């Protein structure tokens, strides 16, 4: 049996947590709990930890959002970090995930900074996503003309598509090139962020290209995706026809797609059959278990159904892996 935590130790840790996460929070308990050293009084010793708490998490955010930090300037970024730490204290051991809420947090302050943060966060995210095997183009070439409309694409996990209100990618590139960049005026832009091998890439997209990719990423068929672009009147049908070949050559060449799923292919039938088979087997187990009135196999078999059904779904320190 797990013993209850020492209430005195719990109280000490809770006090210290509040003491080092709230700037300038010296209190009378400093002297009660902490012994002085030859050179530092108790409050100064606690302040060492308070200072490191802020600096460490600031460093984490700056490493993930370097262009945002540069746009804000040192003092401005300090203020944002302090506000962010107060609103979203870390609830997870993984520092690589700590900045995930910053783009939304910045939205209320600056739509441009929020867009810029979204781009930078996408760069971090794709680093931590696995690569997918290249699209099987030979299988794609075997598709009949009437099958193309119903094709769906499974995207590589290490791909992010962004629709932005500002040309944030241009700003980011300028910062990375060491150029002085002015905050741009609002102007919609579209971007694919993806990983090839160990390198992360950014591909600017036109509005219609983004529409096609976004529709495909949402699981719509190629026919539906193209019809949505035609309806949007972003591009004339003749131009779309010309652009399509180039787009798909580039997207497939850059590894954006992991798999093309033709309508009712053998592969899909096999996948359905496999899931169906597992379901049937699990049901058979349940029936068998019920027949023999044994509760343990019922539980095991019941758990097997959702585990099999979700097996295809994706799941995603001080010192961290950098991009």
């Amino acid at each position, binding site marked *: 049996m*797990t013993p209850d*935590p020492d209430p005195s130790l719990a109280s000490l840790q809770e006090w210290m947590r509040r003491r080092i996460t709230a700037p300038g929070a010296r209190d009378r308990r400093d002297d009660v709990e902490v012994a002085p*050293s030859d050179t530092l009084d108790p409050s100064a010793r606690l302040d060492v930890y308070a200072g490191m708490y802020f600096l460490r998490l600031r460093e984490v955010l700056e490493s993930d959002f370097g262009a945002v930090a540069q746009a804000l300037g040192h003092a401005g970024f300090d203020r944002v970090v302090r506000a962010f730490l107060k609103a979203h204290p870390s*609830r997870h051991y993984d520092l690589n995930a700590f900045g995930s809420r910053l783009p939304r947090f910045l939205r209320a302050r600056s739509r441009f900074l929020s867009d810029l943060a979204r781009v930078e966060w996408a760069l971090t995210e794709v680093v*931590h996503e696995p690569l997918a095997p290249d699209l099987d183009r030979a299988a794609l070439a075997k598709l009949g003309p009437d099958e193309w409309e119903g094709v769906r694409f499974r995207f590589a996990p290490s791909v992010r598509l962004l629709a932005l209100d500002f040309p944030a990618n241009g700003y980011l590139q300028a910062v990375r090139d060491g150029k002085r960049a002015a905050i741009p005026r609002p102007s919609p832009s579209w971007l694919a962020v993806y990983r090839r091998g*160990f390198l992360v890439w950014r591909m600017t997209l036109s509005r219609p290209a983004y529409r096609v990719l976004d529709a495909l990423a949402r699981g719509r068929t190629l026919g539906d995706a193209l019809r949505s672009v035609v309806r949007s009147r972003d591009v004339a049908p003749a131009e779309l026809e010309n652009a399509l070949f180039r787009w798909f050559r580039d997207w497939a060449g850059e590894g954006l797609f992991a798999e093309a799923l033709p309508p009712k292919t053998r592969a899909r039938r096999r996948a359905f059959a496999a899931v169906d088979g597992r379901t049937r087997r699990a049901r058979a187990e349940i029936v068998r278990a019920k027949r023999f009135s044994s509760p343990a196999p019922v539980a095991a078999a019941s758990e097997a159904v959702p585990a099999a059904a979700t097996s295809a779904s994706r799941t995603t320190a001080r*010192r961290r*892996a950098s991009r």
Partner: protein
Amino acid sequence: MRASAASPPRLGFGVGLRSIHFTHVLEKRPHVDFFEAVTENFLGTRGRPLEVLDRVAERWPVLLHGVSMSIGSTDPLDLDYLRRVRELALRMRSPWVSDHVCWSSTSGQHLHDLLPLPYDEPTLRHVVDRARRAQDVLGLPLAFENPSTYLAFRRSTMPEWEFVARLAEEADCGLLLDVNNVYVSAMNHGFDPERYVDAMPADRVFYFHLAGHTRLATHILDTHSDHVADPVWRLYARAQERCGGKPTLLEWDESIPTFPVLERELRRAKRAAGKGAGRLFQGRHGHARPAGK
């Protein structure tokens, strides 16, 4: 598995794997005996960091060193975290995993620091219990590192070395003796670092850490940002002599130099280890493979 049942491999001299050196390590295959990876950097990723670590583990022994077990916390043990650590350790064939004698989270908040504990009997009981349970979940020997600390609690009733040594014995776990941390804490609290090293149970010490620190006007910070300081080298030689030749890991986390600088520092560690270094390569454990193979 408990530490007393383990036979720690004699790994030699290694360095902490940092992302800035990923390409160099994979392409140049440097002459180091093993690498140590910060566990948390590889738990939440299925991407590039894990791909690199897999490739490193094909060639060198990899030890996992964590910073978030929060063994001294009064929050419940994070069993999901421990299971993920176990999974990664098995994947890397890490012969043990290590973390720190500290707390780093409470009330569900992670502070991402190695925060000091009061060294008294109730805290020791608390940490021993959690260490035993963590080790059971991990199914691997667990080694705890002495942290650098910047404050001491008035309620402490024993010196840090006694707390750490008793933790190892009573929880049946290993020790990762960070010689630089001993020195930093000794200077910050005014105790004799040699007394600390001499109090360590040698058979419990799995390996040593070495690193640089930063001396400020009022205290020393454990920054891992510089060469190992001369007094730390002397303390390290004493620790090696006392413990009979243990593997050694060099950490460098800020102002990280090029890899050859780390290799030079490792060569100095071998010289400083003296007679003990000769025993570091005998009787390799099944997990360990020769450097550069």
